[in-house]
């Protein structure tokens, strides 16, 4: 309201002092935000350092921040560490890919046929909330301690994220847009290409972002408890041999990975959202 209807005409020519003052204010604000953020991180690290040093927590099981960071840099020089990162990312990517393909195919078919939507509704609503980790014992029985078992868990959870979003997206087609396409005599296929697909795309991107986070969590979980090689397994091995600095260092690594995945997919999602006004519900895990 304030900006559009009443935007005043600029009366005075841009006074250098005025504009640079504003720019300085804005830069100060960003600077303050960055400084405070870093201060928060620093405060956390300081607390972390103090707790074991002062003996508040048992230093044998809770190494200091400095020790952990030192171990982290030691790990970064270890080839096996990077191999583990690669393994985790591989199972993550593979599971995500399989889940996405399945979800897009099934979601599109079911989403476009109203009869199928109604018929599958209760089944979907019953299967969806099942925690993927509940299937771990089954997966172990079926495949043993192998990658396929992990993939079963990863795919089962990630599938629902993408599937639900694709369902929403396919159903969200604007009635006016569809009528326009029909009135211009577009074939069914052309309609799907030019109306359904662009409408569903942002939903798909959201689903991908949610699925990517879920897939990472479950990939690491599978490695931890199903003896699949990767970062999760490395954490459990370090724990069993009492190398707690390694454990905490690896935890930080997983957090960084999670951040990178989240930021990366958020950026992708935002790009595809640039033109779409969406009203979406977020479903996770």
């Amino acid at each position, binding site marked *: 309201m304030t900006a559009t209807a009443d935007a*005043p005409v600029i009366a005075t020519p*841009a006074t250098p002092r005025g504009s640079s003052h504003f720019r300085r204010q804005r830069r100060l604000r960003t600077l303050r935000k960055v400084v405070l953020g870093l201060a928060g991180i620093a405060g956390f690290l300081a607390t972390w350092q103090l707790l074991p040093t002062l003996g508040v927590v048992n230093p044998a099981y809770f190494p200091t921040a400095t020790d952990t960071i030192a171990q982290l840099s030691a790990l970064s020089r270890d080839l096996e560490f990077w191999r583990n990162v690669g393994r985790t990312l591989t199972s993550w990517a593979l599971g995500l890919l399989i889940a996405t393909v399945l979800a897009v195919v099934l979601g599109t078919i079911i989403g476009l046929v109203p009869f199928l939507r109604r018929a599958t509704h209760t089944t979907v609503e019953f299967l969806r909330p099942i925690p993927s980790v509940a299937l771990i014992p089954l997966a172990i029985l079926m495949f043993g301690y192998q990658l396929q078992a992990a993939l079963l868990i990863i795919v089962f959870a990630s599938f629902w994220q993408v599937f639900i979003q694709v369902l929403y997206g396919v159903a969200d087609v604007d009635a006016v847009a569809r009528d326009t396409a029909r009135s211009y005599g577009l074939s069914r296929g052309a309609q799907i290409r030019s109306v359904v697909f662009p409408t569903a795309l942002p939903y798909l991107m959201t689903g991908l972002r949610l699925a990517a986070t879920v897939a990472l969590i479950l990939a690491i979980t599978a490695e931890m408890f199903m003896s699949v090689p990767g970062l999760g397994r490395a954490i459990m091995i370090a724990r069993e041999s009492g190398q707690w600095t390694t454990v905490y260092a690896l935890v930080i690594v997983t957090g960084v990975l999670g951040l990178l995945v989240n930021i990366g997919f958020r950026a992708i999602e935002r790009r595809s959202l640039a033109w779409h006004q969406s009203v979406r519900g977020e479903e996770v895990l």
Partner: protein
Amino acid sequence: MPESRSAAKPLLTVEHLRKVYESSTGNVEAIGDISFQMNAGELVCIVGPSGCGKTTLLKCIAGLLRPTSGVVELEGKRVTGPPPNMALVFQEYGRSLYPWLTVRGNVDLPLKHKKLSRAERDRLIDDALVAVGLDHAAKSYPWQLSGGMQQRVAIARAVAYEPEVLIMDEPFAAVDAQTRADLEDLVRTLHRERGMSILFVTHDIDESVYLGERVVVLSKSPTWVQEDLSIDLPAERDQLVTRALPRFTELRTHVYEQIQRAKRGEAVRPGVTAA
């Protein structure tokens, strides 16, 4: 100016109001120098060309913005923040009404801290809803109602609050023409039956002449008061009859010409020598 002993002090005084915004591209002088007064029980309309800072002016009067210089006084007291005896009706009713409250809940909300008894509050709410013609919609939610009805809810909320001054910021701009006519008559009815002092900002010239007892014409940015016109139409106004009066046409033509001059920047600010 000699003050007669019977003349009451003005309700609202705006003196040499000036507001300058700093933006990334330069200084923007939204309001140059605005001075006017409003007496109790008056219906004053403010018109001006697009972009002349009407909303900025209202926000300064309502205490939502701090002016760069100048004074706003309500009942003799300087306005530094939103004064408790003032009520605002915004243009975007959709964003001003709270969607999680019913119509009744929305009207009730500002009354909660006024230290009234439950019975007293209910009376005020019922009274206000009847006055705007929405007593049957008390239990509905705002988003279930049409645009015109939502704006009525916002008006009812302001009326129930019993303010000294009611400020309305282009309230009917987003409403269709037929509804707008009804709402204009509603405003006039509220003004006459309750003696409410109303400050009404609009870009619709016909509306300003139809509604107001005075019309304040603002200039182009940097804004100042180009003219303060007295509307000598009869107090009883009707959409058909009044708008057909020759005097109405004269007045609206005059205001229209003023606005055109304002847009072209031809009007000269008193006390400032022409360039």
